[in-house]
């Protein structure tokens, strides 16, 4: 053990003498761990929220009894089932509208509520009385209270005219849910003596068979491990994970580069250690121990950084998930112990992976070979051919995945294979370009420039690979986002064709508003709208009722349709389906679907497919009159108006004044578009931030490689200085060299990035979200990224170049001294 300690002390002393190299290694590991852990923290936070939502008063995480015949069943079953030994508790669920906004209302019976029912709000013993005795309480999340602009104790009116019990905040509740005593819920929802489900506790005991108590009226639903929200948001989290992984890999490039160079510099020491009697086994054990120690330190620092990254990105992620999926994520980060352990583990694992080649070389290290710092670089040259062959193999795998893969994971695998192949083949491409440069160089200094650049390539190639990956992903994601942005804007123009949108608080107010509007000269058309929800093929979908009007005929974003589609929509036996629903159910024009409706299944022929970006749910658009015939109880509170453009502000003000509507109930088209675009922009804000981080890490990789290489460059530069080339000129040459290889890399990254964009648009997006965008190239954006890459290379090169320009002649003279 003591022996190991002394060997470890010798190995660690290297870092004390080379702090910059240690910093490089730690920066790489910290960046990799921080970005990966940050993304994992965001994912974990979201999943905790989904769990909370799923478990609230008997979500999918609780076993329950539900009625077979309809959404509710008589309350008498609760008494019967409980008497038969089942530890059940009743819940009634429905929706209420307050100020035109819809909320989920849950009626519970706190006395029988099983303690183990998920994360149900803890209603303490003292609180139960206040909750169940008049006037009772309405429990709600703090976010919902602030959304309503109300204070605790308020008793808001619901659309039926009844008032809610006083509001009382329960922090554990998910937003947009209100909880009242079941008796109050039955009144508010007008469902006397009815319940939606019976939650089943886990208390074991003798129970009578369900059939004996309720015949076939009730059905047992087993708890589900995964909630709908988890399924819906899987692709979003997969995207985040992919970015986290990319940043992690780019970080590991730095680690690999630092460890490789440290290994090269310590080659002589390792041999001396072996000569002094350190066995190969012990030497490798100590090398691993050294690496693990460093990884533990970096892992802990990385975790702290990861926490801050996650905290900074959480608001945007939460906004994206709310905008895209309606998922409610609290704004505060809570992290589990597993996250800390996983973070440290990934740091150690990453360090070991990054050091694998160096460790393998250490294991095979021949004791006798004299220390040759150049041997490592020469060996790299031999790797060039192998690397290129490997790259071709990876490209073949990418092509096979592209041809035969049919999942989101396969899509990401294609991307990963493409990027890995390109990174592997980059050194060979650079070597080819530099070789050509050398061949056509005329003057001696130019010849030396190209030859020396080739020699440096092995030391820089890892950092350049990192730059290539970061740039390609930036180009790819940038192109995709830009394409999406433009498509989304033109799609919004089609979807938000009306000039003013109104959401009345109830049907009566909607009728009153319509009557009032008919008297207004500036109103050119009133377009009532409605939405119903149902299930199709096991997943929730929306049915959208559209008025037969030229506004929709001219603007609705139909991708495919039969001739005269809008006329065919009128009778109610045909509908348009959204692109993602068509893709999921493999629907084409002319196919038939059957929508479950209260009065029985509603058969529809698919006569059109339309774009519905950003909607996680499938959607079917039908004629509004037909929708109301099949779903008679849906609220008819939505109105779209065509209005003379100049009269819009006046009309909106008049509506607000006359009917007490606020910004949430009445909005003009411009406001709606701005809000939609804001959601869109926040969705990609996280992507953009991770993109920037990755590019930053690549810049650091380049800087640290250049700094590390800087010292070993002296033997190559000193002879030139000796024959009369000034230090300033040498520095300028070094700068030109770095910028040249960075430029070649960046130029290689552009087509690769466009390929990445195509993969994202044509494969990943289609699988993840269900829509396909047109593929466009934006030359200005490419030029901008090229500029950013060159700037990153310039910044990275400046410090080592400045050091060279200011280097004392004594340092250069040392190269020629016998002592070296």
């Amino acid at each position, binding site marked *: 053990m*003591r*022996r190991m300690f002394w060997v470890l002390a*010798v190995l660690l002393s290297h870092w004390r003498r080379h702090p910059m190299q240690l910093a490089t290694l730690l920066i790489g590991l910290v960046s990799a761990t921080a970005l990966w852990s940050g993304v994992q923290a965001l994912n974990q936070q979201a999943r905790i929220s989904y769990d909370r939502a799923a478990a609230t008063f008997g979500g999918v995480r609780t076993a329950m009894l539900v009625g077979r015949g309809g959404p509710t069943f008589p309350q008498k079953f609760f008494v019967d089932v409980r008497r038969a030994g089942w530890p059940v508790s009743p819940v009634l669920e429905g929706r209420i509208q307050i100020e035109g906004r819809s909320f989920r209302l849950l009626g519970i019976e706190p006395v029988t509520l099983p303690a183990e029912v998920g994360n149900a709000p803890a209603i303490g013993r003292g609180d139960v009385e206040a909750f169940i005795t008049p006037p009772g309480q309405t429990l709600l999340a703090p976010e919902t209270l602030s959304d309503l602009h109300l204070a605790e104790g308020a008793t808001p009116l619901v659309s039926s005219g009844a008032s809610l019990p006083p509001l009382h905040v329960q922090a554990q509740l998910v937003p947009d849910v209100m909880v009242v005593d079941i008796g109050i819920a039955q009144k508010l929802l007008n469902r006397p003596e009815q319940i939606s489900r019976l939650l089943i506790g886990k208390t074991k005991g003798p129970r009578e068979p369900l059939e004996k108590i309720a015949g076939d009226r009730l059905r047992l639903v087993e708890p589900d491990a995964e909630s709908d929200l988890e399924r819906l948001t899987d692709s979003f989290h997969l995207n985040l994970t992919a970015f986290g992984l990319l940043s992690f890999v780019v970080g590991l490039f730095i680690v690999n580069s630092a460890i490789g160079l440290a290994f090269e510099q310590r080659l*002589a020491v390792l041999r001396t250690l072996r*000569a002094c*009697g*350190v066995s190969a086994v012990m030497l490798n054990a100590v090398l691993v121990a050294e690496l693990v120690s460093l990884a533990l330190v970096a892992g802990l620092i990385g975790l702290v950084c990861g926490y801050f990254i996650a905290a900074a990105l959480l608001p945007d992620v939460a906004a994206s998930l709310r905008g895209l999926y309606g998922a409610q994520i609290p704004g505060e980060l809570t992290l589990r112990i597993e996250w800390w352990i996983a973070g440290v583990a990934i740091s150690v694992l990453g360090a070991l992976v990054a050091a694998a080649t160096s460790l393998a070389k250490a294991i095979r290290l021949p004791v*006798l070979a004299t220390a040759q710092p150049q041997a490592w670089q020469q060996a790299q040259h031999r790797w060039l051919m192998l690397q290129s062959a490997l790259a071709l193999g990876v490209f073949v795998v990418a092509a096979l995945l592209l041809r035969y893969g049919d999942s989101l994971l396969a899509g990401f695998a294609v991307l990963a294979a493409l990027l890995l192949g390109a990174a592997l083949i980059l050194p060979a491409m650079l070597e080819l370009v530099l070789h050509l440069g050398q061949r056509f160089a005329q003057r001696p200094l130019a010849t030396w420039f190209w030859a020396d650049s080739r020699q440096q390539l092995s030391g820089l190639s890892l950092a350049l690979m990192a730059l290539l990956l970061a740039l390609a992903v930036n180009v790819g994601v940038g192109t995709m986002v830009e394409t999406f942005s433009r498509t989304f804007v033109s799609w919004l123009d089609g979807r938000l064709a009306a000039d003013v949108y109104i959401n009345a608080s109830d049907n009566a107010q909607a009728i009153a508003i319509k009557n009032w509007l008919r008297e207004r000269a500036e109103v050119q058309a009133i377009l009532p709208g409605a939405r119903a929800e149902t299930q199709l093929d096991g997943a929730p979908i929306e049915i959208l009722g559209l008025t037969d009007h030229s506004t929709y005929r001219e603007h609705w974003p139909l991708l495919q349709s039969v001739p005269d589609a809008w006329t065919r929509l009128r009778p109610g036996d045909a509908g348009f389906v959204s692109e993602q629903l068509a893709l999921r159910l493999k629907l084409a024009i002319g196919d038939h679907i059957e929508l479950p409706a209260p009065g029985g299944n509603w058969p529809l022929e698919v006569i059109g497919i339309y774009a519905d970006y950003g909607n996680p749910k499938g959607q079917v658009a039908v004629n509004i009159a037909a929708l109301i015939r099949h779903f008679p109880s849906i609220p008819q509170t939505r109105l779209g108006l065509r209005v003379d453009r100049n009269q819009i502000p006046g009309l909106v003000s008049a509506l607000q004044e006359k009917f007490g509507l606020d910004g949430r109930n009445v909005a003009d088209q411009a406001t709606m578009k701005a809000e939609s675009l804001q959601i869109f922009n926040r969705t990609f804000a996280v992507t953009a931030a991770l993109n920037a981080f990755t590019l930053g890490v690549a810049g650091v990789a380049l800087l640290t490689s250049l700094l590390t290489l800087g010292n070993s460059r002296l033997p190559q530069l000193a002879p030139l200085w000796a024959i009369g080339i000034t230090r300033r000129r040498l520095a300028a040459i070094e700068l030109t060299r770095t910028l040249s290889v960075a430029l070649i890399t960046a130029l290689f990254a552009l087509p690769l990035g466009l390929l990445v964009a195509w993969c994202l648009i044509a494969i990943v997006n289609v699988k993840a979200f269900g829509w396909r965008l047109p593929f466009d190239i934006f030359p200005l954006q490419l030029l901008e990224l090229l500029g950013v890459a060159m700037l990153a290379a310039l910044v990275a090169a400046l410090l080592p170049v400045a050091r060279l320009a200011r280097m004392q002649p004594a340092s250069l003279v040392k190269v020629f001294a016998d*002592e070296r």
Partner: protein
Amino acid sequence: MAGNNNIVLSVRNLTKTYRTAGEQVNVLRGVNIDVAAGERVALSGESGSGKSTLLHLIAGLDAADGGEIRIGDALVTKLPDAGRAALRRIRIGLVFQQFNLVPSLNVEDNLAFQSRIAGRHDAAWQAELIDRLGLGALLKRYPEQLSGGQQQRVAIGRALAARPLLLLADEPTGNLDEATADDVLALTRDLVAHTGCGFLMVTHSTRLAATLDRQVTLHAGLVA
């Protein structure tokens, strides 16, 4: 030659063959050498005669094809890698032409390094070595801050710090000027005499070889 009971190194019928580019080179073809405790032996011969190969085989840095090497009571040729490493730690001191100091350790730590990993660190002996090698003023310096002669003195101190049975040196003065080489070798001879270990030095210099107790010349893989 010293009596058998004092023998610290015994090499018998040692053979070593290298295969390079399809060609077989018999570097050592049955070498026999003995070195007694306190004896100082110079190993010379023309380039390619197998001097360094022999030294590396004795140190256990490479494995012989045939024959026997015994250091004290340890049969080097039968030891696995870990056993040979342990032998190097405890019973052998190695000095190279290139000094091979650990650049990240200062003189003091370089001197103590091998004795520490051998578990034979003796502060008093180290202090005596520092004094005899004249390194007292240089203890906090790093190898890059030393001259070649100073570096080689540190390397010799490191090799002797664990009180080995045998000191092996591969062209230890090859990188030094004549005067420095003489100084370094004189110091080594004194220390070997003081510690009583055996000393086998590979050298090209007949002048330096002549300063040792005995000269062994290798020619075409055999002791001439």
